[in-house]
Structures are given as C-alpha cells and as structure tokens.
C-alpha cells in the first residue's frame, strides 16, 4: 500500500476546510493517508481527519514542545517525517503555507513539484494545472525519486470516507538554517482568507474610492465572504495589494465570485475564472465581464450592494428567530 503524506493546515485553532479537498484528492483504495500536523494538535482533530479518510496522524513536535513557526524548520520537520515513515508523495494546499513549505521541501529533496494543481493522478504521476494566466490547461507528467504536489484550494470537493485513525507522535530537532523569524505583524484584513473563501466579493474602478469599499466589507461580513479588488483599485491605493485578485495578485476559486464595478480584463479573469458562479454588477452592459459570467446586473453597485446586505441580514435574522422557537 502506497503511503501518501498530506500537509494539514490549521488556522485560528481550526482545521482549514480546504484540507478535506486535498485529502479527497489523495484517497485511493491502494493508498494509506498520513496527515502531518505541525501545530501540536493531532488529538484535537482526530475525528475530523478520520471522517475524511486519514489513517495515520503524525503529530510533529520538537523535543521542547511545539515546533515554533520557521519556514526552514517546518520544512525540515516534514522531510524528516517523510523519511522516517517511508513516504515519498506529499500533497498540500497552494496557500500561503504551501507556497512557503512545498518548494523548500522539493528543492531539498530534488523532487519534482507542481503547484496549483486542479487535477492529480498519483499513480500515473500526471497532474493538471492552469498556465499562462489561466489561458491554457496543461497536463504534466512528473518523474523523480519523490513527488510533491500543491493543490489549488477548493479545486476538489471534499467527500467523507470515515475510517479509524491512529495518532503517532513524532519528535524532531528544530533546524532553522540561517533563517530567523523575528516577528509576525498581523494584517488589517479580518478572518476569512481570500484564496480560500467560499464567497469573494470584489470591487474595481467603479468603487471610486477607498471609503466605498466599506459597502463591500459590510456585505462580506453578513455573507461570510472575503473582499477582493481589481488591479485598478489596488494601484489607486484604495485597498492594499494583498487584496488584489488577478494575474499579479491572488488566484481565487470560490463557489461564488461577485464582481462589483469591475470591467473584467484578461488579467483579472486569470485570478478568478475557475470560480463556481461568477456574478457581475456593472453599470456598463458592454463591460467584458458581462460576456463571461453566469449572471449580471446592469445597475449601480451603490444601489445594489446595500440592498443585498440588507436582504441577507433579514434572512439570517429570520433563521435566528426560527432557531429560537
């Protein structure tokens, strides 16, 4: 039985939902799934991981307790664990953490790596990924001594496959190389990560200024969405660069993408074209985005978005009332 390792991500004390899609992609009758946890909370997430088919939970820590965040030391810990358990295939998310750790691991092992996979065939060593800003889909064949794959968040729908999971503690010495992490400065943006949100609501030129983004944040709050932006809005300094969706920004693949006052350039589509549903709100019926979306509303976003926020609030309010009865 081939052993497959999965780099599991935790955020604010919870397992990221997007992990389950990665586990689903790795599952096969002939595979034994190993989950690598670096935050010292294997026990806590045992039942959740077992529900999606993880058989072994490798709870990685240092001899002095939890392994403190350092990209080199975390990468080395995974490499040691792979070696110890005889694992030569590793999957993770193409998230901030995956982009930081998977290439370091592949470089150290001199292993092939494909990031941002939208399809994987582990036994054939083939994957699909988009290239050229989403204009082409490539089928790639990888060969080497071990294999590393970064999966695009939300590219695989999670499917449960309950099994029994065993927790195996694994201790390793921290190896930081020459890299010292001095500080983590927390960002201004709240909770939901743009690249992994189920709903993204983005604003472009039509937002007109920085203050108006407040409308999107309010709407995002009630929907549980993340707020994105087009390059125009970022270049105009209305919102920070970390919010840019597109070719030279974040790639998102949410269930629903709502574009407000965004014309829809090729470069913008490069960052969101794999979204489930694309909804556009634009005053210009001829805007490029209206030709390549699922639904569009030819109207002023300043009129539509507050109504959307209000109506969702009312629905949620009703649900709360029903719950109270």
């Amino acid at each position: 039985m081939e052993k497959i390792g999965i780099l599991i991500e935790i955020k604010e004390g919870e397992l990221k939902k997007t992990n389950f899609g990665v586990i689903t992609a790795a599952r096969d009758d002939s595979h034994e799934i190993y989950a690598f946890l670096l935050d010292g909370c294997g026990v806590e997430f045992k039942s959740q991981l077992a529900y999606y088919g993880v058989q072994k939970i490798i709870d990685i820590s240092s001899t002095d307790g939890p392994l403190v965040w350092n990209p080199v030391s975390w990468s080395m810990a995974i490499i040691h664990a792979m070696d110890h358990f005889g694992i030569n295939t590793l999957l993770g998310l193409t998230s901030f953490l995956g982009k930081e750790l998977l290439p370091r691991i592949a470089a150290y092992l001199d292993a092939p790596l494909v990031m941002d996979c939208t399809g994987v065939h582990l036994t054939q060593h083939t994957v699909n990924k988009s290239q050229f800003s989403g204009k082409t889909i490539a089928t790639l064949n990888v060969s080497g001594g071990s294999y590393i794959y970064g999966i695009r968040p939300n590219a695989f729908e999670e499917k449960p496959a309950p099994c029994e999971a065993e927790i195996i503690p694994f201790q390793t010495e921290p190896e930081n190389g020459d890299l010292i992490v001095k500080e983590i400065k927390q960002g201004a943006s709240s909770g939901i990560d743009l690249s992994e949100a189920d709903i993204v609501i983005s604003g472009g030129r039509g937002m007109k200024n920085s203050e108006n983004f407040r409308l999107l944040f309010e709407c995002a709050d009630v929907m549980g969405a993340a707020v994105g932006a087009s390059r125009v809005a970022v270049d105009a300094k209305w919102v920070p660069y970390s919010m840019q969706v597109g070719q030279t920004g974040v790639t998102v693949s949410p269930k629903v993408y709502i574009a407000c006052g965004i014309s829809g350039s090729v470069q913008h589509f490069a960052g969101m074209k794999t979204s489930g549903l694309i909804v556009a709100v634009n005053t210009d019926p001829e805007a490029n985005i209206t030709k390549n979306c699922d639904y569009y509303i030819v109207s002023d976003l300043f009129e539509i978005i507050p109504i959307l926020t209000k109506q969702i609030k009312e629905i949620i309010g009703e649900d709360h009332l029903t719950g109270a009865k």
Partner: protein
Amino acid sequence: MKICVCVKHVPDSAANIAIKEKNQFDESITFIMNPYDEHAVEAAVRVKKQVGDAEVIAVSVGKEDAVKTLRSALSMGADRAILIKTNIRPDSVITSKALKGAIEQDGKPDIIFTGKESIDNEGLQTMYRLAAALDMSAASNVMAFSLEQERVLVECEMEAGARGVMDMPLPCVIGTSKALNKPSYPTLPDIMRAKKKEVKIIDLENLVFEKPMSRVEILELKPAIEKRSPKELKGRPEDVVTQLIHILCEEGKVL
C-alpha cells in the same frame, strides 16, 4: 558587492496562446520581462545605489529572443547580462541547475534577486531550488527589504495581510513581490546606454551543470474553455437582489 538578478522572458499576459503540436504554442507573439522580475531588477539596482561599490548581473535561461528581456534589465540599471541559450522550454529543475552553473562560473554573488513567480508556467519554485543548489538562505514574497552589514532583513507577505519579519545572512536569494517597490521605467538615454552593455551568451549544451534528478514534462496543452452563458437579472433593484440571493443559495450552494 556582487548582485545577480534572474529574469525570465515570458509571453505578454494579454497575448493569445495558440496551441500547436499538442504541447507547444505559437511563440510569434509579444514576449516581455516577467512582471515580478521587474521588481527584482529594481531591488538589485537600489542595493547597488546603497552600497556604491557593486555590480548587477542579469541572468536568464531562454531562447535567443530573451536577449530583449536582458536588454530591458540593462536599461533599468543592470551592468551586464548572461543568457543561457536553449531552444527547449526548460522546467524549474533544469532552469535552477543551469542558473547555478552559470552563476558559479561567473563568481558567486552576495545576493540574488528574482520575481516570486513567473506568469507563464506559474511554477512558484525556481528561486527555492536555486537557493538550495547554491546553499543559500531564501525568502520569497518579499515586500520590504533592507541590507545592513552582512545581514538582510525582509518582510514577507503572509495570509490575510499579515507580514513575517525575517532576518538572514548573506549570501541569500530574495523572491520579490509586487509590493516591494515601483520599478522606474528607463529613459531613452538609459535604453541607448544599455545597447552598449555586455550580454554574454552561453549555450546550455556547453554549460557544465549538475544532472537533473527529476523532471516535469508538458504532455498536453489545452485552451481553457470558457463555457459560461451569461444571463441578465432584470427588474427593480429589490427584486433583482431577491433573485440573486435565490441563485446564491440554490446554484452557488452558499449562504
């Protein structure tokens, strides 16, 4: 001080990619310097200005046409350039090993800058492979950079707008994000001066480098199909929103 900057010649993001022979594409389109690499060149030139006695060498792996991207780097302030010429489209493994070979042949640098990713292959790994091959520390997605004595302090973009502050010694590899700086576009005299600067061309076949142990091969390229059929939601604003919420719940399976 010796500073290297690795740049890639890539199809313009607005160019149409016409697939031919199953896994190739028509390359008679506009190619440009990978946009993230512009920030790498700018960062390298700024370090040169800061330390004074320094040389900036732009290095690229690609076809002969990649000389154009190297000339752009020279017009932005690099001093000389090296092209590792090949007619294949190399994967990240060969690219990093070839870069290592050429860079070591030229003399090991103190800092290597390169864009955090390329917009064509979107591989997100060459800089880490280069760092590992040269046994240097690496940080990517760098949005702030400072050099003091023999150490480098960087701020790297993390999740949800957070920033990781990291410190490492020279020599090191820095992957630049768009937020690091604003590249200064060359003036006509800059472009004229760049034409006189040296571009050394080395054939990949003649370069001594470590044999790759792994490989990523393109079996097939397909155009991404755009199959959406847009429908307009019409009516009074309140009604349009009601329809939209219904769609979000029923089709989008959210809320």
